[in-house]
């Protein structure tokens, strides 16, 4: 389980889990689950486009993630938020289907991009993931205070001089960044399980926002490590265990009487 070819999987998963935990805390606080789902999944045609053009997958993914941030931001202005996410997601995926169809690489690569492939990670990919994870965590630390204030009360935040539109943009940007890195690892569909389940469970364990963030990261790490171990033993896909474990986390949080809204706490 800890042999050389699994080592990369463990390291990358750990990095992704830390970033996902930090971002997930804000996803839960800002009620942005749909955006957290739409951005990573909407980045997936980026990988197809990159393979058509023969560049590294990461740049395609990052490019489409940025495109997603701009599109959702623009569509949000015209209508409501969830419609914006839904329409961006649908058009990105439709484009992805077309690109994959034209490039002729189909079934297996789609499955890998959507549901993840922890075993095929090389050293260069690991370096890119480490860089992006570090950047995500640094950005979160940089905007954490105004972002939290804005999530709890946008009136209070604007009174304190924060610009809501700019903060939303930065938040979506961080979301996109953290998802682009995670796509080849846990897959587009399940990056967001890591963001939503652990962070919502964390609310049940503490009332304090920053402690809650730390707990979220902890649960993320526990989830991803157990998922890899279980996947190694059973030979089933990692994504299944990530999804199931984070649903269990959420259920455990609910049972612990954890519907304590952050808003009442701060």
């Amino acid at each position, binding site marked *: 389980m800890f042999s050389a070819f699994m080592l990369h999987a463990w390291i990358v998963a750990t990095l992704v889990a830390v970033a996902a935990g930090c971002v997930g805390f804000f996803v839960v606080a800002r009620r942005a689950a*749909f955006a957290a*789902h739409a951005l990573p999944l909407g980045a997936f045609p980026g990988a197809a486009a990159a393979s058509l053009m023969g560049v590294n997958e990461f740049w395609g993914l990052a490019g489409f993630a940025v495109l997603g941030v701009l599109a959702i931001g623009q569509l949000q202005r015209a*209508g409501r938020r969830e419609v914006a996410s839904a329409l961006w997601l*649908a058009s990105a995926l439709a484009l992805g*289907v077309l690109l994959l169809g034209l490039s002729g690489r189909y079934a297996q690569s*789609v499955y890998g991009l959507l549901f993840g492939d922890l075993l095929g990670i090389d050293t260069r990919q690991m370096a890119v993931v480490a860089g992006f994870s570090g950047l995500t965590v640094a950005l979160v630390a940089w905007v954490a205070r105004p972002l939290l204030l804005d999530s709890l009360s946008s009136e209070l935040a604007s009174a304190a001089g924060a610009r809501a539109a700019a903060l939303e943009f930065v938040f979506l940007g961080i979301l996109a960044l953290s998802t682009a890195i995670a796509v080849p690892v846990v897959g587009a569909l*399940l990056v967001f*399980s890591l963001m939503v389940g652990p962070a919502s469970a964390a609310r049940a364990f503490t009332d304090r926002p920053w402690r809650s963030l730390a707990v979220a990261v902890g649960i993320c790490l526990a989830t991803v490590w157990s998922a890899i171990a279980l996947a190694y033993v059973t030979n089933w896909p990692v994504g299944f265990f990530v*999804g*199931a474990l984070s649903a269990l986390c959420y259920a455990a949080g609910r049972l612990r009487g954890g519907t304590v809204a952050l808003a009442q706490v701060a």
Partner: protein
Amino acid sequence: MDSICTWGHMGGFWCNQPVRVALAVGGGAALVCAVVGLSTVMRRQAFAGHALADVSGAGGSASYLLGINPLFGFLGMAAAAAGVMEWAQVREARERDLLTGVVLGAGLGLAALLLYLDMTVRNVSGAAITVLFGSMFTIPPSIVPVALIVAAAALGASALIFRPLLVSTLSIDLARAQGARVRTIARIHAMALALAVSLAAMTVGAILSTALLIGPAAAALQVARRPASALALAVLIGLAATWGGIALAYQSYYWTPGRGWPVSFFIVMLIVCAYLLASAVARRRSGSSATAPLSGCQEH
């Protein structure tokens, strides 16, 4: 019917068996999605609709494993997910958002497992593409009657609850005062949503069905001033995009020889264009006159 087979080079289009099946099933799906999508968008349940569609993909994957009709797989899983979300009903909007997300994550995880088992146990390799992105021209003709019955059931349920659902969407208190059973209506709507979503998942695929569900309805709500005209417009956009998409995909075999472009791509792109057009119209109109009354309940 066969006389149109001789109409120019589009003649073959109408006489092609897979095309006829696609037109029938796609049309049914578009009709139902437009009707159910309208209340879904107005009730701010776009995320729930999307989640049901994605989760129904797990059912589609299971159908390969069990060797049953894929429509029943999609339906069973969508109904189960709708049941879970209704059962664990939560009042607070934030909590509903999270619950939807968690159900979606777990459902997708299950889909990953089932697709993996499809590949390893049954040696079905194209299942991931078919289930997630649909393949309209490979729908077996035997599905048509079942699909049309499902469509009729969803339409019937929507018609039954149309007025009380509209009232309870605008104001729950008003609906209660009128004696409507708000909880029951919400449950019936969730089931109609599950039916619509599984039909759409059959046609454009599980993760693209959101476009069929949300797009036409959201576009219609941008410009329509009355519920009836919104309904008519949504149905029109949905049908036009679906049938237009099928026709374009059929044509695309001539563009890139030997390889057609996916139907789902054309349908989604037509829907997105309709939405952008509708927002442009709405923006021009809001400059000159009062905004559509229906858009008032879009933004709170």
